[in-house]
């Protein structure tokens, strides 16, 4: 079942606009995640799709039919709440059955579906217990089962994993993905956890302040962020933002860190005229986004490396996060955050050590300094206009 949102808006009497007229097209069978920080409007959007909130403006289409004014009872969408919302006075079996009973599904069918869902989610031994007797992970699976058993048009999930501990969350995440691959029901998933979004989704919609900022596959969002907000939101550790200025060196885009004298020769690659036109004249101030894995940390000086000092080493098992500070002439990062590089843990660096930073031409993005919009992306060995 496809889902379409047209200019969907939610404004409250106090004047606060939670969702500012968003448009969205979700394909049949797609796992679509609304990702964003707290208060960005993603849960409100989900609740409008369910019918639990009435939109102030805009339309909602499910399978091509306008469901905007339909009562939530009749929308045939199943929702997994963040708090699970299991009926505490009913057993697990009764929780699973309730919807089917209301819809007058024949008893034999109900029994069969309960059995198959219980098997699928490994809750068969819990059927006669009440929610109060279950662990968090078990309750989560029952909540999932309650939605699955209905075979709805659309699944809605509101941060269902947020109350599980890390190991359980990762395991359930994998199970959810397998479930989706098997059942292929259109799913709208809301979360503020970018790792969940990246793992589970076919496509992600990044939301902030009531708007959808960017829609794309996880890889697209990671490689080609539309603006600084998206670049910073996706990726751990966060992208590094450097103040730079640019120059056209016979068709090659020369990028110089503000405060240093020479351009970075390790990332001197060609760019089209289009790109130069977009970026502006020579010496225009821009922001360069560098992913931590695109920074090489050297222990000896090199011609194309910038001097820096190691502030902190954070061991993460297979890799280390190296927190660095440039030498005194070069400006700190554009957002005041420390510069972070990711290196394999076999490279031994120590706090206070002198190091030299060389950037690799991987996934670099140039942003406009004022609007923070992405202007050009390094793809392959050339700069492209976005």
């Amino acid at each position, binding site marked *: 079942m496809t889902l379409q949102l047209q200019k969907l808006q939610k404004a409250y009497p106090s004047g606060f606009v939670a969702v500012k007229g968003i448009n969205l097209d979700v394909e049949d069978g797609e796992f679509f995640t609304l990702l964003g920080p707290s208060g960005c409007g993603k849960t409100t959007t989900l609740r409008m799709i369910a*019918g*639990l909130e009435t939109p102030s403006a805009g339309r909602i289409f499910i399978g091509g039919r306008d469901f905007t004014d339909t009562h939530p*009872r009749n929308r045939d969408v*199943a*929702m997994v*709440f963040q708090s699970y919302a*299991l*009926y*505490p006075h009913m057993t697990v079996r009764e929780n699973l059955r309730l919807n089917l009973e209301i819809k007058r599904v024949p008893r034999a069918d109900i029994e069969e579906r309960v059995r198959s869902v219980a098997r699928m989610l490994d809750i068969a031994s819990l059927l006669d217990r009440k929610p*109060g007797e279950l662990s968090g992970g078990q309750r989560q699976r029952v909540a999932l089962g309650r939605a699955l058993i209905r075979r709805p048009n659309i699944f809605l999930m509101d941060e269902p994993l947020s109350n599980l501990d890390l190991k359980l969350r990762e395991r359930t995440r994998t199970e959810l993905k397998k479930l989706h691959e098997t059942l292929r029901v259109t799913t709208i998933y809301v979360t503020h956890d970018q790792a969940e979004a990246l793992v589970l989704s076919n496509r992600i919609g990044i939301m902030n302040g009531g708007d959808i900022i960017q829609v794309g596959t996880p890889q697209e969002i990671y490689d080609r962020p539309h603006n600084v907000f998206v670049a910073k939101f996706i990726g751990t550790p966060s992208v590094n933002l450097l103040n730079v200025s640019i120059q056209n060196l016979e068709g090659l885009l020369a990028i110089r860190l503000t405060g240093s004298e020479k351009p970075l020769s390790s990332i001197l690659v060609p760019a089209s005229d289009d790109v130069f036109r977009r970026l502006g004249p020579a010496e225009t101030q821009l922001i360069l986004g560098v992913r931590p894995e695109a920074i090489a940390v050297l222990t000896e000086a090199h011609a194309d490396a910038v001097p820096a000092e190691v502030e902190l080493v954070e061991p993460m098992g297979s890799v280390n996060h190296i927190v660095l500070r440039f030498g005194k002439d070069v400006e700190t990062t554009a957002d005041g955050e420390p510069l972070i590089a990711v290196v394999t843990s076999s490279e031994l660096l120590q706090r206070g050590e002198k190091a030299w930073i060389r950037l690799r031409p991987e996934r670099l993005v140039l942003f406009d300094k004022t609007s923070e919009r992405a202007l050009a992306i390094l793809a392959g060995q050339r700069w492209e206009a976005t």
Partner: protein
Amino acid sequence: MTAQNAVSSISTGARDDPRAVGSRLSWSKLAAVFVVGLWLFPFYWIVLTSLKPIKEINNAVPIFIFSPTVENYQELFTKFDFARVLMNSLLITFVSCFVVIGLGVLAAYALARMRVPGEKHIALWILSQRFLPPIAVAIPFYIQWQDLNLLDTYVGLILIYVAFNLPFAIWMMRGFLADVPVALEEAALLDGLTRLQIILRIVVPVVMPGIAATAIFTFVFTWNEYLMALMLTAYRSVTVPVTIAKFVEPYTVLWGSLSAAVVIQVAPMLVVVFLLQRHIVRGMTLGAVK
């Protein structure tokens, strides 16, 4: 044993060991026994009195050992038509309770869940009904009930008791209902239940402890009510409290019948409280939401 218990028992040793309670006499325990005894003694004495022959009741020195008799109870039912009075009280109280709970839950639900215009004013107005001392409206009600031919009827009393108990019931239920997580009802909504089905199948079972508590209060208040019953009944729909007062005659007090009647009056309350107490179970909503 939880971690907390383990720590406290290590630090304070035997003093907090529950098994040691019986073997230690402490001042606080003595005081507790004394106070409880003081409170329970009048009731114990009444039960005793109801089983004593008249001669021994009127003895100058209190008698604690005697051969019990049921003649007081027999006299109650034969001479004073107490069976009918008891039925009156039971009927009026139970019907009042059902109506109060039925209307009260629905009204409280509307106030707790639905966006009613001016709901804060309505809620305060409902509470303000309790500020009125019933005696202030006793005579006006008498006059009105006389005009409406409701004096000495079941309906007349039931209407009064519903009117006086409903505000309190709504106020109590509103608090309990507000504690039910909204997500439960939203989940039920998406499961296809109508609003009424949600109230009956989801909300009421979850809020049953609150309903039980409200029912107990309503029952006790109505069962013991004296003033309005005195004013508005004569002989057809007279209730137990009014009848008991009649045992205090101008020149004598019929202690035997009085004490038997009091024991009978207390019994249903004990039964109701005992039955409903089951429903006031801690952690009723445990497991519904995290």
